[in-house]
């Protein structure tokens, strides 16, 4: 069953929204922090926390720059992040098909043992 586990870094409401948002953009594009915040409907502090975890995993990159004189933070998904997300979707789909054909088996595939 181990290979059916869903990536716990992605499989939470907040981070799933963040990853879906960033991977929906054309490749090579980033979002400014406020725009991302509006799209995922998170508080700034909450979003920062989740972004830090995704950044540590190498799934997103947070680029701090300047727009004129105003500091501006931009967030984009990395190639590794895109791969992880595609992987996540494939497993999610496999789980849904399995539960649709075999009936409920109670496996949600969530594993928070990586908590730190």
């Amino acid at each position, binding site marked *: 069953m181990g290979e059916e586990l*869903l990536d716990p870094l992605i*499989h*939470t*409401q*907040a*981070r*799933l*929204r963040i990853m*879906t*948002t960033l991977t*929906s*953009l*054309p*490749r*090579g*594009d*980033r*979002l*400014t922090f*406020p*725009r*991302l915040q*509006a*799209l*995922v*409907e*998170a508080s700034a502090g*909450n979003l920062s926390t*989740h972004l830090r975890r995704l950044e540590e995993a190498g799934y997103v990159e947070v680029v701090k720059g300047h727009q004129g004189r105003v500091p501006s933070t*931009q967030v*984009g998904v990395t190639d590794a992040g895109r791969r992880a997300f595609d992987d996540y*979707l494939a497993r*999610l*789909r496999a*789980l*849904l098909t399995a*539960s649709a054909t075999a009936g409920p088996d109670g496996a*949600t*595939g*969530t594993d*928070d043992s990586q*908590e730190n």
Partner: protein
Amino acid sequence: MDDERPLDPEAGAAIVEAQRARVEASTAVDPRVLFGAWGLAWLLGFGLLWAAALDEPLVPVDLGVALAVFFALLAAAGVVTAVHIATRSRGVRGMSARQGALYGWGWFLGFAVVGALAHALRRAGASEDVVSLVMMATSVLLVGALYMAGGALWDSISQWALGAVITVSTVVALVVGLPHAYLVMSLGGGGAMLVAAGVEALRRRRARGH
């Protein structure tokens, strides 16, 4: 949003679908808006020019007034385009945003040449008929060529086809000559854009239906 709670797979799939739709609806440029605005401007603008330029005008409007209305409609479509793109691309940075901005400036500079050409032709003593004809042909040439270039770059057959239809309409319009050239552009240009907007609307409804 809370957060570390485990999701079940159904909830995960629902979040992905909803969030994708939301990002698409708020950051992607909507071709229905752009084709709709320009299609309407051309259909009405060129239509009015045609109606006013006939030997026995269909509407009691001076040709100069019709021309002013035409440019006002084009300017309105330009404003709709600029506002729409600015709203959708707010906060989006990187490759596609830069690509879109460069493409947009290409349109703007191209039309600056069209405007300057009209001015230069008048100064050189060209008749109003010649000026109208050249303005119409060059601006439509630019639109058709840029649509085809955009369609090629973004791998969009429908955008390329629209550019091709507009370009062929321009050839027909030039062969036909004034005043009926205006009618050709009204239907072949504006009509084609409205059809493109309609096709896109249909495609989206069908995609949602599944």
